[in-house]
Structures are given as structure tokens and as C-alpha cells.
């Protein structure tokens, strides 16, 4: 029993470590839940320009922190989604967006995947159709006739 209590208390003591770690994450207060929602959505959609395969929410880079703070500041001032996106793209270009706008130079990015999908589906169907034809056309009546005669001769040979 004593052993159980010590183990239990020891395990419990780990809970105390959690708040110490949580301090590291900057916590922001918002006026409305909608603002908080917008903030979370934006930091997930904006890209960290320093560590390019992470969004602002995931990145630990100093610059990402500054950009998160800026996003928070703009939202708290009553900035809309478009305001924040404009602020960031004015400074970092479309590059900062994980959801790039539909433009002339992003045309391939948006249209490319569906086009390739249709091309490959078309090729796939054509291939399947060709295979069906081959299967049905393999045996002609002449083929059957010669096959039968071959079978007859071979079975009589065995006797």
C-alpha cells in the first residue's frame, strides 16, 4: 500500500510540470470567440517564410512568432481576414499563403491536378477497353476447330 501511494504521488507530481511548459506558448486574449477563431484559422493558413514547410502556428522561428503577434495585433484592432492577408501579402507576396489566389501565374497550380487526373483517367479507360477486346477476340471458330482436332489426336496417342 505504501508503495502504491508513493508511486501514485510520484506520478501525480508530473502534473506539476505541465504548467511550467505551457508558459512558453504565448497565450492571447480575444474580445470575441469569432476573433479567436479567425486568429487560429489565419495562423494555420499563413506560411512561415523562414521555415518554409510549416505554417505560422507550427513554427518556432522568431520570425513566425513576430508574424503571429502581428496577426493578433491586427485582429484585435478589428482587422478582418482580408486585412491580415493583405498586410502579409503586401510584404511577403503570395508566397506567404498556403492557399494561393487563383491568378495567371498560379493557373497551373490550380488547374494542373484536375487536368492530369482527367488525362490519366482517359488513358486508363482506353487501356481497359483495349484489354476487353483482346479477351473476346482470342478464339475464332477456326481456332476452336484446330484445337479440337489437336485434342483428339493427342488423346488417341495416349491410348
Amino acid at each position: 500500500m505504501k508503495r502504491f501511494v508513493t508511486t501514485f504521488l510520484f506520478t501525480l507530481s508530473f502534473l506539476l510540470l505541465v504548467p511550467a511548459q505551457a508558459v512558453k506558448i504565448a497565450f492571447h486574449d480575444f474580445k470575441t470567440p469569432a476573433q479567436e477563431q479567425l486568429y487560429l484559422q489565419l495562423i494555420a493558413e499563413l506560411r512561415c517564410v523562414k521555415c518554409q514547410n510549416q505554417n505560422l502556428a507550427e513554427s518556432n522561428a522568431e520570425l513566425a512568432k513576430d508574424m503571429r503577434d502581428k496577426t493578433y495585433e491586427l485582429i484585435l484592432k478589428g482587422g478582418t481576414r482580408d486585412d491580415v492577408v493583405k498586410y502579409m501579402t503586401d510584404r511577403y507576396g503570395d508566397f506567404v499563403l498556403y492557399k494561393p489566389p487563383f491568378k495567371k501565374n498560379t493557373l497551373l497550380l490550380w488547374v494542373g491536378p484536375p487536368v492530369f487526373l482527367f488525362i490519366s483517367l482517359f488513358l486508363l479507360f482506353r487501356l481497359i477497353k483495349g484489354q476487353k477486346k483482346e479477351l473476346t477476340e482470342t478464339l475464332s471458330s477456326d481456332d476452336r476447330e484446330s484445337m479440337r482436332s489437336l485434342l483428339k489426336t493427342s488423346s488417341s496417342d495416349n491410348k
Partner: protein
Amino acid sequence: MKVKFLIPLAAFMALVGLMYFGLSNDPKLIPSPFVGKPAPQFSLPRLNNPDETISVSDMKGEVWILNLWASWCVSCRAEHAVLSKLIAEEKIPTIGLNYKDYGTEDYGDDAKKWLATLGNPYYAVAVDTKGMAGIDWGVVGVPETFVMDKKGIVRYKFTGPVYQKAVDETLIPLIKKLRKESP
């Protein structure tokens, strides 16, 4: 029929070509949206005289350079000699934007030491403690170097430490060209 068997080879070559193009592209070179646009404004305290400020508008009518640097930045140390030589030879006014340096609350002891050791090529050093002017200039990583024309339009951005070849082949010809333009 004879051509058909070449299709996979052609597709493969196209893929290789695409990948080669991808390799030769540096993903860190983000095209600056500022090139061709007016330089973002700032008005910041000067490193050596915090009571005075230096602003972008002070540079109007001149071809000038903005160089983002910090004492903690190793590449800045690497480019320092090349940049200093360019500034001295071309006599081009250059603002150093001291980006998020340590100890900048008391106006940059580290930055001052850095300049005292390596030499100060700058016309003025602006202190950007919080890095907010940096963000206004679209900083990704120091050092970054911008060239502005006489109208205050950003004409060129160099990402990373400037090296002699880039100075000789790009920066000096550009500065000479911009100086000939009317203000």
C-alpha cells in the same frame, strides 16, 4: 507504331527536365513584392544617437542602400568587408537596419561593439528592436540588401550575404544606371 515506344522515354526526359529545373531554383529566394514599389517607411532611433531618428524619407533624391543586419548574424559578418568596400568605392549612402539585436533596449551594446571591431560603413544605423520595421520590409532572414532609386522606389533586393561577384556584376552596374536617372 515506331514512335510509340519512344513515349515513355520522352515522358521520363520531361520529368528529368522538370526536376532539374526544380533543383536549380532556390526556394529561399522569395520574389520581393517591393521591387518597383515605393520603399516602406520607417522612422527609428539611431544607434549612436538614440535621441535622433533616421527615416526612409531622409534619403529622398539619392540612390541609396538599405542593409538589414544584426550582430548575432554570422552571414552579416561574412558580407561586411564586401559591403564596406562597395559603400566606400561607390560613395553610396547606406542605412543599416539593425534587426532585433541583443541588448537593444539600451540601444545596442552588441551592435556598437560589432561596428567598433569591424568598422562602420553606414551613413546611419537605425535600431529596430522589435523587428517590426523588418516585417514591413518583408524580412525573411538577415542579411538582406535593398537598392532604392532617386524617387525612393525599391529597384532591387539581394537576399543573403553580398559577395564580390554580385557586387561587380549586378550592384555596381545598377547603381551607376540609377544615378543617371533623373530624380
